[in-house]
């Protein structure tokens, strides 16, 4: 019997040939990390293999000693009885797919990915394979993310209509915030953008990595300054909206940038006045098109709405397996 390319263990996905877990949600001896979001990249592993940028991001979030030892995934690496390389996933800065080859077969663990161009990171690189492991965060045919430019235009139209009301946009600190800033710059918004303190270090890191974010100002101003703002865009992590921090702003327009904003009930639940459908994940069309493009003999579904992808596999005669991995958030903060 040939050794399986991948296996499911209580810690998460495991490659017996590599002797390593991929994005395990409990501490393990050896981990390969696809990207820096907290639900995929946890501290406390023995050894971590990841891209340079993911390692940097983990060090920023958890401190330099987040793992026993680290290794930058540079080119193809032989590990145990297999070879592994990391290729871009297009999700956030440093995000990668894990390509594993052993016994003449290839598996790709895509982590989280999107096919929509993201000015803040390298685009998804399709790698044909025998086994493809996909996410399913937005795996329902109702999820069709509009072009992000359209959503940015809606934000700017709102700022023009209500210049006296600061626009407070909820965004995740890693990836979404920088992408939003880049999209605003591309849309011609060159004024300073205010950012909550929780976004500062990761924005600084993007700038160090050569991603120009333009002028950013801290949003930790006092009440008088906050009330004097005009035509202001302020970015903050979602948790800030429940904290007294938000009270300094007079009559803000509260927005939120997320793929979930496509569903009205979800937007209302969050009390959002300006929902912006901007996602770092694949929508239904991208998920199904990617599987069709790679045409693997089998695909596995890690987390999300796997029922619909399973049904689609049925309808299109593909082999699929739901992993129902626990521990992954719907979207990391």
């Amino acid at each position, binding site marked *: 019997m040939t050794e399986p390319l991948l296996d499911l263990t209580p810690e998460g996905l495991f490659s017996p040939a590599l002797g390593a877990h991929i994005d395990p949600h409990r501490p393990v001896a050896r981990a390969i990390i696809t990207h820096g979001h907290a639900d995929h990249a946890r501290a406390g592993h023995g050894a971590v293999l990841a891209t340079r940028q993911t390692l940097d991001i983990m060090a920023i979030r958890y401190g330099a000693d987040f793992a026993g030892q680290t290794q930058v995934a540079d080119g193809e690496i032989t590990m145990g009885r297999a070879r592994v390389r990391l290729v871009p996933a297009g999700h956030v800065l440093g995000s990668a797919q894990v390509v594993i080859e052993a016994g003449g077969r290839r598996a790709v663990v895509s982590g989280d990915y999107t096919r929509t161009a993201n000015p803040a990171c390298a685009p998804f690189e399709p790698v044909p394979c025998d086994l493809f492991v996909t996410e399913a965060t937005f795996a329902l045919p*109702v999820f069709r993310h509009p072009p992000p430019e359209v959503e940015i235009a809606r934000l700017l139209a709102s700022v023009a209509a209500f210049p006296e009301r600061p626009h*407070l946009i909820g965004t995740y600190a890693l990836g979404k915030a920088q992408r939003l800033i880049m999209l605003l710059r591309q849309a011609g918004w060159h004024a300073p953008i205010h950012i909550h303190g929780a976004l500062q270090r990761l924005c600084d890191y993007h700038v160090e990595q050569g991603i120009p974010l333009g002028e950013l100002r801290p949003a930790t101003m006092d009440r008088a300054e906050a009330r004097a703002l005009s035509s202001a865009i302020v970015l903050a992590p979602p948790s800030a909206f429940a904290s007294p921090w938000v009270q300094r702003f007079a009559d803000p327009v509260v927005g939120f940038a997320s793929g979930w904003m496509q569903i*009205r009930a979800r937007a209302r639940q969050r009390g959002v006045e300006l929902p912006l459908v901007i996602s770092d994940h694949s929508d239904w069309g991208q998920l199904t098109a990617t599987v069709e493009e790679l045409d693997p003999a089998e695909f596995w579904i890690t987390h999300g709405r796997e029922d619909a992808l399973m049904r689609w596999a049925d309808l299109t005669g593909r082999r699929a397996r739901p992993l129902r991995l626990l521990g992954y958030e719907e979207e990391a903060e």
Partner: protein
Amino acid sequence: MKAFAALLERLAFTPGRNAKLAHLEGYFRDAPDPDRGYALAALTGDLSLGRVKPALLRGLAEERVDPELFALSYDYVGDLAETVALIWPAAGAEGDLRLADAVESLSALGRVEAGQKLAGWLDTLGPSERLALLKLATGGLRVGVSARLARAALARVGAPEVEEIEEVWHGLELPYRELFAWLEGGPRPEAAALAPFRPVMLSTPTDAEQLDPLDPAEYAAEWKWDGIRVQAVAEQGTARLYTRTGEDISAAFPDIVERMAFEGALDGELLIRHGEVVAPFADLQKRLNRKSAGKTMRTRHPAALRLYDILTWEGEDLRPLPFNTRRTRLEAALTTLDEPRFDASPILDFTTWEELANLRADPPEAVIEGVMLKRRDSAYTAGRPRGPWFKWKRDALLVDAVVLYAQRGHGKRSGFYSDFTFALWDGDALVPVGKAYSGFTDEELRRLDRFVRDHTVERFGPVRSLQPRLVVEVAFEGLNRSRRHRSGVAMRFPRINRIRWDKPAAEADHLPALTALLPPEVTP
């Protein structure tokens, strides 16, 4: 459809009245005729297409999407029109559809044809426009815009005041080209409708202190009835019943309209009255919420008019005359009419403010919510002029309740816990009896917010459940029976009157103290 869809999208998520007005104003300024007219009618509920039923819609979608995938999606989204709008497969290039073309075609087509037409349009539209079209076709935009708010937005577009717009409103015809032309500087539309609405005269609140320097002899006083203020207009064979904002509610009150055998415009209170006994407001509300009134409804809750004023009579405009003269004319008109369901609100006998205060404190009926004061020489003028008319409402009812839940506010109160659910004791348990959003100062709001953060037990999204510690004195205007609330009662206009930081929760009021305030049930 793009502009209309964008408007609906913003309105659906905008809680604030001012922001809603700004969105509406922008749309009415920019959108062309006749689209904006149809949009206005759709928003005010004056456009009833509603030909496309949910089953048909679902059928159309399932011809294009696997039913199981559709079911999974619908389950997640929770709204049929939204699911269809999002899931509809794009077919070919995205185009746009004139709102006017959509409305005109849909109103001309039968149900099946409308469905086919709809499918063709959905193929060419983007998701936001698809949703707007589907909401239009199935009826019910549900974006929290009342006809009154829409008219207030129109008043911001041009010079005419909202009262003037209300006055011509019922004579207007779709798609309201004349109205928009008027707002943009054109001539005022002719009052084409028979029995048009006249802008209402409103009063300002007062109290004993403000009344003190005034001469009681210059004022007439009446009871303030707890019904709804209406205007009954009958002219040249057309009879209409309007609310004070000009909504035509004739269809819901045929028992009033059929008795309006006069030529004129009367101002009064709509009540439910059994013989001489006036029923509580809740009974009237049962009829207000309906589009029409069946026989059972009319027998069980018979409507009556208690009249305050006379605006026109047999072709004569009486509004410039002094109140005293109008009152004499009103009484004469009622004598001629001899209609048992219409009577005049009695004039109270008093000579000093103290005497009036005593009357106010002990009204003969539970449905009286204070007294009205009208200068005897006042003409009937539209709007809310300060001075000629006062309302002196009875003191609010008070109860000490325990705050159980808090929710974050919107707009100016973003980030503050400002919406409170409060409860009374029922034995050892606390039973929620209402919600309040107002009545505190900014300073108190900050202190309340701190209290919420420090005493949270559990969080559910934007809501927090709290340790039962904080007592607030809740003021409210009245109480109705309610089957929707666990406590069995619903308060009218509850607000926080005082925060009792000092009072232990165990000393808050018990539910029976509240239910004792319920009005007696009146049955025919």
